């Protein structure tokens, strides 16, 4: 029933909203939540519980429970208690079989005694039965129905900054925000509710004072130039250095605050008695929210169960709105609230002291409350079930205690202590820059809350240098707002602690009896607090029960770990944009024009091969290979790391980081370079070129470019040598022009003398190519005459076009990474990371020729000394398949088997057009690595292929082709 207009109500009576629930049409007002509109329409059955499919209605109306979990079209698990009503919504309850009313899952309620705590652990002992259980539970479990056609939602991510972030816009939070802003801080205050004000707006005690007061406070906050107020915004987590995700309907805002005030208040906790989950049994705060936010009458005739002053105020609120309060049951024998009690009695409400509700009697259909059965309750928490009394009512209102909304405080690393005077965990030791005030801090009285808020506001501002800290005041509550034992045993059970997981008192007793008597174990065994509401309404009672059963105090029992997020956050809010950065070389569009098929190489996109009309991938690659071997090819090698080093100690630096010697490298010459880590494992290779006595230019692998440069700068910092490094990876473009006709392509474009005497193999020259300043290196990676030409990136296009034009008479073609891999394999040149792994030393990779152990020092040297004394475990060796082999070709990583044992593995394998057979590199046991020796390779299907050890290079073993310029070769 809708009440007459109430000051401060959230509904807009001028706008009606029509919606459907379980096939029936209802009307509410704009500003209603789904639950408030349904409750107003006298709908009491809002959902079914997870395990026993019990009828459920409103419990907290505050997102602290999930009784009313609904599906709205493609949106799953909508929380009806807090979800704003939207027009034409089609809502259904989740977790039912055949609709909410007729739910055939109800029979599970009668099987409760066969579903004991720890059921899964007990049921799944027989492996053979597991498929049966799995089928059963897959059908029974899961909430909501996923629509696989749901569109991909993109939500923006926002970044924001403030001095002081206040979380919770109740009395203490608002006052904290004012105090901090008055001190000069820029303040943001957030509240998850649609409107600010907190409990003061609805815990009115039948009067308007608290609402008027909070409204005035809210007005001064809204008007303050240094305060921004965000409602319907959840502070979802706490991350290091005051980094708070603020989640609203549209987006997530990553808020970086200078300091944080947690004024998040408390969760009201249910009393535990038989049938305490019936629709109509609700928390007092839920009843008050129904009244003051949505002007909905919670019930017609109520029994109020309480153990604090809040319950008395709730009774007054109900009475003021025309609800017949049949009785007020106070679990305590006495209290300090004389005036409140007098006001309650003045309304004609009977007060029973030292009594409890033993059970809620269900209506005939089982979907509502018919009466409260009460009985005496002694100071030790024992109910006298023999002397009961029946009080007819259609609703029960519970106000027996609170638990702190300390989730973010725990996440921030706050040490909490259990305060006996308020029966609540309160912050004992807060992290730097984190402050707490109000009820989460154990402060309940209205005046005290304002004082505490002002103190926290001044402290948080002073932490950032605004104003001075507040005076620490000791605030003592006159009585505890929470009962130490709001739990009533009942022989028939069904006295629920966790409403998400349908956990009853006896489940905890059994779990403890079975030895799960530590809070973390108890949680995992019973699953308490593991449901969607994450223990907001259940953890406190669970730990009280554990404390009582184990004879400890709640403080000794402690709490479980609080983790993000505070409320579930939609994945669409969390998902990023799929941002995976790629680097393109300055020649990228040239490759595109030539039909390149690209492949990722580290962060780079490189041409794998150039597609040609009517040719397969393999044909294209073989064509590129043939072109390099017979005419001339060009490959973009701009992805290589390119570093320049200059200074008196440049030589010394290179001597220390590479395993070869560079002190004797002549100016104008290059040398292969292998880098090891401290354990002597190969991590990178490249070419070092000497441009001057104190000036070198060197390359790293494509994937090593960034990390190797970074590590070299660290080493330069550590060693404090007199030299400087410059990373030219992006600044320089590079191509390798290779093939017997390479010199003929290059010669017309440069004045450089390309003769062997003037520009020998492994030489470097600085010259102009097609008018572009260039560094040219005579390299032999692919085994033909080759010029690696490095130019500033801006000239890359011009260079490519000049070479391309000059090369057309010679049949120049571009070749990709795949062709290069084959060409280098024919030469037996290794690729770091493919032919080496995280344990490969130069000794194993046949690189002894490069290893200068007699140098004073290089990284890995000392480790290699030790390794050299040990027997070699494996050796990188060439192998070939029989020339006529036409079976399944082995692949990289296939194993070499010797007498049933693993004796090695393949690292590279490919068809060699030059040798007309498959060739490869493999790690093999040294005793097997004898020329022409037979090795057996095991294919994926288990069959064996024979191969023979073959020396490298496979092609041009004397390396004649790469050393001599073509014209001299021809001569």
């Amino acid at each position: 029933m809708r009440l007459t207009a109430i000051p401060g109500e959230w509904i807009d009576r001028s706008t009606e909203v029509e919606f459907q629930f379980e096939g029936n049409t209802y009307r509410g007002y704009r500003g209603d939540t789904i639950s408030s509109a349904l409750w107003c329409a006298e709908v009491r059955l809002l959902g079914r519980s997870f395990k026993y499919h019990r009828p459920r209605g409103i419990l907290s109306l505050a997102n602290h429970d999930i009784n009313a979990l609904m599906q709205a079209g493609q949106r799953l698990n909508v929380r009806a208690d807090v979800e704003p009503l939207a027009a034409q919504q089609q809502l259904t309850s989740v977790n039912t079989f055949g609709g909410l009313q007729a739910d055939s899952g109800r029979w599970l309620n009668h099987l409760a005694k066969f579903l004991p705590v720890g059921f899964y652990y007990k049921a799944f002992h027989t492996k053979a039965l597991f498929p049966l259980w799995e089928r059963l539970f897959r059908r029974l479990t899961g909430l909501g129905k996923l629509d696989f056609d749901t569109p991909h939602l993109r939500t923006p991510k926002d970044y924001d900054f403030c001095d002081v972030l206040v979380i919770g816009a109740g009395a203490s939070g608002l006052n904290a925000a004012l105090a901090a802003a008055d001190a000069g801080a820029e303040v943001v205050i957030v509240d998850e509710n649609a409107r600010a004000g907190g409990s003061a707006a609805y815990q009115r005690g039948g009067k308007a004072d608290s609402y008027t007061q909070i409204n005035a406070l809210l007005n001064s906050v809204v008007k303050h130039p240094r305060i921004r107020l965000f409602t319907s915004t959840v502070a979802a987590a706490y991350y290091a250095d005051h980094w708070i995700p603020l989640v609203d309907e549209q987006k997530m805002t990553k808020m970086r605050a200078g300091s944080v005030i947690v004024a998040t208040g408390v969760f009201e906790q249910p009393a535990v008695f038989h049938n305490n989950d019936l629709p109509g049994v609700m928390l007092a705060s839920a009843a008050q929210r129904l009244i003051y936010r949505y002007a909905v009458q919670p019930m017609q005739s109520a029994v109020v169960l309480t153990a604090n002053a809040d319950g008395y105020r709730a009774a007054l609120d109900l009475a003021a709105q025309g609800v017949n309060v049949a009785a007020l049951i106070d679990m305590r024998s006495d209290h300090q609230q004389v005036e409140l009690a007098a006001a309650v009695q003045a309304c004609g409400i009977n007060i029973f002291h030292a009594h409890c509700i033993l059970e809620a009697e269900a209506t005939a259909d089982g979907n509502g409350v018919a009466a409260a059965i009460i009985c005496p309750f002694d100071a030790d928490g024992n109910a006298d079930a023999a002397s009961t009394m029946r009080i007819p009512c259609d609703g029960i209102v519970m106000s027996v205690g609170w638990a702190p909304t300390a989730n973010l405080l725990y996440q921030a690393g706050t040490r909490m202590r259990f305060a006996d005077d308020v029966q609540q965990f309160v912050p004992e030791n807060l992290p730097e820059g984190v402050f707490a005030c109000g009820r989460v801090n154990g402060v309940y009285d209205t005046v005290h809350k304002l004082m505490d808020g002002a103190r926290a506001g001044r402290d948080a501002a002073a932490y950032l240098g605004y104003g001075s800290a507040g005076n620490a005041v000791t605030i003592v509550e006159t009585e505890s707002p929470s009962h130490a034992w709001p739990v009533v045993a009942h022989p028939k059970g069904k006295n629920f602690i966790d409403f998400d997981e349908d956990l009853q008192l006896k489940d905890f007793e059994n779990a403890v009896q079975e030895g799960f008597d530590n809070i973390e174990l108890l949680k995992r065994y019973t699953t308490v607090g593991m449901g969607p509401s994450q223990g907001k309404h259940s953890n406190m009672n669970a730990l009280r029960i554990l404390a009582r059963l184990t004879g400890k105090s709640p403080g000794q029992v402690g709490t479980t770990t609080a983790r993000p997020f505070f409320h579930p956050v939609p994945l669409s809010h969390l998902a990023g944009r799929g941002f995976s950065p790629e680097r393109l070389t300055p020649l990228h569009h040239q490759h595109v024009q030539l039909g390149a098929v690209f492949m990722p190489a580290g962060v780079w996109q490189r041409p794998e091969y150039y597609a040609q009309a009517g040719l397969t991938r393999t044909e294209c690659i073989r064509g590129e290979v043939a072109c390099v071997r017979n005419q001339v090819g060009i490959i973009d090698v701009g992805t290589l790391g390119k570093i320049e080093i200059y200074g008196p100690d440049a030589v010394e630096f290179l001597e220390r980081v590479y395993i070869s010697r560079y002190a004797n490298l002549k100016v104008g010459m290059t040398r292969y370079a292998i880098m090891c880590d401290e354990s002597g494992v190969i991590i990178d290779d490249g070419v070092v070129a000497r441009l001057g006595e104190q000036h070198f230019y060197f390359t790293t692998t494509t994937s090593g470019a960034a990390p190797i440069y970074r590590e070299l700068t660290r080493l330069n910092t550590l060693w404090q040598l007199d030299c400087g490094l410059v990373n030219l990876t992006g600044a320089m473009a590079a191509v390798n022009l290779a093939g017997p006709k390479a010199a003929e392509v290059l010669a017309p474009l440069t004045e450089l003398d390309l003769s062997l005497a003037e520009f020998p193999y492994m030489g470097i020259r600085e010259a102009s190519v097609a008018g572009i300043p260039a560094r040219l290196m005579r390299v032999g990676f692919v085994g033909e005459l080759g010029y690696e030409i490095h130019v500033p990136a801006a000239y890359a296009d011009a260079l490519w076009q000049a070479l391309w034009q000059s090369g057309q008479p010679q049949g120049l073609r571009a070749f990709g990474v795949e062709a290069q891999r084959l060409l280098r394999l024919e030469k037996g040149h290794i690729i770091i990371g493919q032919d080496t792994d995280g344990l490969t030393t130069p000794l194993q990779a046949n690189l002894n020729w490069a290893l200068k152990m007699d140098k004073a020092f290089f990284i890995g040297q000392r480790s290699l000394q030790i390794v050299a004394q040990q027997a070699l475990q494996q050796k990188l060796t060439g192998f070939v398949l029989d020339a006529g082999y036409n079976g399944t070709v082995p692949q990289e990583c296939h194993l070499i088997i010797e007498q049933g044992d693993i004796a090695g593995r393949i690292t590279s394998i490919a068809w060699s057009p030059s040798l007309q057979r498959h060739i490869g590199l493999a790690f093999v046991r040294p005793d097997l690595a004898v020329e022409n020796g037979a090795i057996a390779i095991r294919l994926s299907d288990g069959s064996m292929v024979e191969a023979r050890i073959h020396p490298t290079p496979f092609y041009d073993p004397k390396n004649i082709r790469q050393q001599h310029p073509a014209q001299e070769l021809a001569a």
Partner: protein
Amino acid sequence: MKILTCPINGARPISEFTYGGEYRAMPDPQTASDVVWADYVFNRNGAPSVKLEWWCHTPSTTWFIAERDTARDVVIRSFLFDEMNTQGGAA
């Protein structure tokens, strides 16, 4: 997200930094026994304590030392390696 202070670029989010491991003095390779050397190469002390660590501000490639209490994950101070002799000592 944590904030780390680079001695050159100031306070920046941790995503701008690369961790370079604990600062550990290398034993003299000439005199160290195989056991001492292997311990240096392979073993790391993960016990929570105040440690000197290498950090690099990635966009500017600025290496520096941060003194961090790994138990509390709090950076006590950060300084350039040049100041190791005047600032350091703990190593």
